[in-house]
């Protein structure tokens, strides 16, 4: 009888094709026998590309080519993040991009290619971001998550990072569905909405915006991936906000949640979008150059000197009234409307570092001189323990 052969069989691998650099210049995996798992962008670009204040072009804010489905709402958000960072003249490498797991969480690979990115654990982006932020308060923290990531498995981490006032821009790319696992409902799917397979969702939906408001986020917005003119300035303003900024971006899933009966489809969101305001972000001391009709604009000055010019679309909406915002949202949600815009901002926001009273120098730069109390102190400690 043939039996099992005892002993350990070590995996023998050919020792080639293990990294692209073995063949210089080969940036795109995809040669015969190699599984294509990422796509790098070609390096050339137009010599006449516009440059921002720091001399960076759009291309400097881009990343690898997206591997998401053609027409995915998430790619529009990626484009908006690129646009916002370009407009703000951020040094790309001073941004840390952190995400969880899922379609949305893959996107940090598709923007800011010269930034460090961290595709962490499902639902745990907020804690990783919190730790990163504690280590170096000087970087810009961009958290990218999805509705499964933030409203289901990571609902707790979402909530606690908001209530801790971590200085971050937290973007949820909200499509109400699990894309990578092929179309299950997520916790933001509205009750009564239908899945692609025709199943009706009987569970109540979690509105992350409402929760963020309740937990004390100091910048709360909602937008639609199909409305870049609304989304870009919201992202820019959120980045300039010192405190917990949260943006819920409804981002239709072209593959699994863009059908009739879905409340997260392009058509549904366009029809039910109720924008309360439009935003312009003004950085620097330039006077407001856009002409606004009197009484229609509200200027909010943030801690860092940036100004947010809010064009009111709903005359009664006050983005400084947290309670009012919560009520407004509830009322409109009951009518089936999706309220978008800058929903709440506290220009005097504080962040976790303020609360912990940490030194201005990033903790990750402190050395033994700064951190170690030394042997003389230890001798005293020893003496007190006898």
């Amino acid at each position: 009888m043939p039996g099992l052969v005892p002993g350990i069989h070590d995996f023998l691998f050919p020792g080639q094709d293990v990294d692209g650099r073995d063949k210089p210049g080969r940036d795109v995996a995809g040669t015969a026998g190699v599984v294509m798992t990422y796509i790098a962008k070609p390096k050339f670009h137009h010599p006449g590309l516009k440059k921002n204040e720091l001399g960076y072009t759009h291309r400097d804010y881009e990343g690898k080519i997206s591997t998401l489905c053609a027409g995915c709402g998430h790619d529009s958000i990626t484009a908006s993040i690129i646009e916002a960072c370009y407009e703000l003249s951020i040094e790309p490498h001073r941004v840390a991009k952190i995400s969880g797991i899922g379609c949305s969480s893959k996107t940090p690979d598709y923007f800011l290619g010269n930034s460090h990115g961290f595709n962490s654990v499902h639902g745990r982006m907020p804690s990783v971001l919190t730790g990163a932020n504690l280590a170096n308060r000087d970087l810009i923290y961009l958290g990218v998550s999805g509705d499964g990531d933030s409203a289901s498995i990571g609902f707790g981490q979402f909530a606690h990072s908001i209530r801790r006032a971590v200085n971050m821009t937290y973007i949820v790319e909200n499509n109400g569905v699990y894309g990578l696992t092929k179309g299950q409902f997520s916790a933001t799917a509205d009750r009564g909405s239908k899945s692609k397979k025709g199943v009706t969702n009987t569970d109540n939906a979690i509105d992350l915006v409402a929760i963020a408001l309740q937990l004390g986020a100091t910048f709360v917005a909602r937008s639609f991936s199909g409305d870049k003119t609304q989304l870009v300035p919201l992202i820019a303003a959120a980045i300039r906000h010192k405190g917990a900024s949260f943006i819920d971006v409804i981002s239709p899933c072209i593959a699994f949640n863009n059908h009739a009966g879905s409340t997260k489809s392009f058509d549904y969101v366009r029809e039910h979008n109720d924008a309360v305001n439009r935003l312009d972000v003004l950085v620097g001391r330039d006077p407001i150059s856009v002409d606004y009709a009197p009484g229609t604009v509200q200027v909010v000055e943030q801690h860092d000197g940036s100004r947010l010019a809010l064009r009111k679309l709903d005359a009664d909406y006050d983005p400084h009234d947290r309670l009012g915002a919560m009520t407004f949202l509830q009322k409109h949600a009951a009518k089936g409307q999706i309220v978008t815009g800058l929903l709440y901002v506290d220009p005097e926001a504080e962040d976790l570092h303020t609360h912990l009273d940490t030194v201005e120098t990033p903790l990750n730069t402190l050395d033994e001189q700064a951190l170690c109390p030394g042997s003389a102190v230890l001798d005293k400690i020893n003496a007190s323990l006898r």
Partner: protein
Amino acid sequence: MSVQSPISSVNDFVVRFANVNGSGSASANELFARSILRHGVPVSPRNIFPSNIQGLPTWYEVRVTEDGHLGARGAVDMMVAMNPQTWDKDVASIEPGGYLFYDSTKPMPTSKFREDITVIGVPLTAITNSTYTDPRQRQLFKNIIYLGALCALLDLDPKLVEQLIGEQYKGKEKLLSSNVHALHLGRDWALQNLKCPIGLRVKKSDKVGDRIFIEGNSAAALGAVYGGATVCAWYPITPSSSVAEAFTSHCKKYRHDPETGKAKYAIVQGEDELASIGIVIGASWNGARAFTATSGPGISLMTEFIGLSYFAEIPAVIMNIQRAGPSTGMPTRTQQCDVIACAYASHGDTKHVLLFPEDPAEAFEFAAAAFDLAERLQTTIFLMLDLDIGMNHRLCRPLKWDDAKQYDRGKVMTAEMLEEGRDFGRYLDVDGDGIPYRTYPGTHPTKGSYFTRGTSRDRYARYSEEGAVYADNMQRLVRKFETAQDMVPRPLQANAAKPTKYGVLYFGSTSPAMDEAIGILEARGHQLDRMRIRAFPFHSSVASFIADHDFVYVVEQNRDAQLRQLIVNENGIDPVRLVPILHYDGTPITARFIANAIGDHQDHLKVTPLRKAVT
């Protein structure tokens, strides 16, 4: 019935206090232990407490040991029975010839006592109530009054106790004098009404030396301060919470900028253990030294992140103050039961570095070293304490720090190195030790960035599901673990006086009991070479030690012989050659237990030749 003569012993006995938790007895009991130390006599105290805030029984056991045996001894020579709830069991646990000290205010039926012990009644409640009116004062000073009575009974020098009280209430004159007053109330009553001293006595000695008296958790936290930890994220869980609390208090004293008063540290109490380890990993990824402290259930929750730390190669330090599992287990009882859970934590093929300190002094050293190791090896380092080391005061050598020491920040590629044109591949093994270079976020505008992920990737951190790429990386991780073997604390070996075929392996809090057991075994004619394992991966000397002996006992505090399993598994040792000696009832292992178990086994080895047995 034969009359049992009372135990007579100087500087070698066990006193156990039976109290109700929340009654304020802890500080009086600790004062008792410390005052014996001030006589130059070593003590080894242990808290035995429930997972509860008020009302349930607690015990505090003080082993007075001129010979310096710091392990638990087992058995009680004198019971200070202050808890009616546990009276019967407490009385029953006294050694024949031992002493029972109790509050005699209310008369007790003789059936509640034993004839073979000496019963010492002191009307504590009556003395207290005639002196104090405030109920809280009555409760607290009753503890000091029994301490005073014990002073007289055990022949303690009241001046040394007063001195300690003076240090404790420095600057609080009113508290100081009232405590001293209560102490004398008890002492005077005993001197006037009882035959003092009894057979158990404390005599001044010089066996304490320059040793210090500290809890392992506090020492580990201090190690984190000295080791440069700046971020601590934790979630309360017995018996680890006092690590984070001690870190907080040490940082308040030693880690504020003298000019601005601002904190050179950040401590976050997470919403759970997942968040705690997530924060640690985020901070470490970004170049800060970060740690968390937890216990078994927390380890279970952290395992997904631990796998990320292993695979994405992010430093992390986890202090695991082990308690009896599985599940909620016995939260306030000690065990060494997470060896396997930590060594192989997380799904997929993983291996993690474990450090096993034996006492607070090593907890301090290993905690500081853990941060160097974590950054050098870019992986999770477990500091494996247990409740016995962590939550009890232990006499140990003074803590030491070399001011010339610089932190080993590991292989970090700087902006300058990138400018020089050094090839940066996040998972590229440039030195053949399996350890790649990393960069901190924000280092350079165009060079050195990479995408960290828990998915498979190539040497340049690019996503890949290609088999060869994956295997290449997994094999490098094995190389890295082999590199770790020579970086972690080596095992310590002590050979028996005479050559022997038998050895013993042990680790962590078993240490003092093992040392003591060796003496007992020698007296019984059993010679054993011993080796204390201080880390995993095991140094090659562990395998040689086993090879050098016919067989080796492996002493540990868990049911499944976890260290033995790990040795068998990692070193390919024939399990027959490793004899498990297992103690796992939640109490600290004792020398008596080890000596009996090994001694019995050794006695069985002395087989009578077959022919002799037949005839």
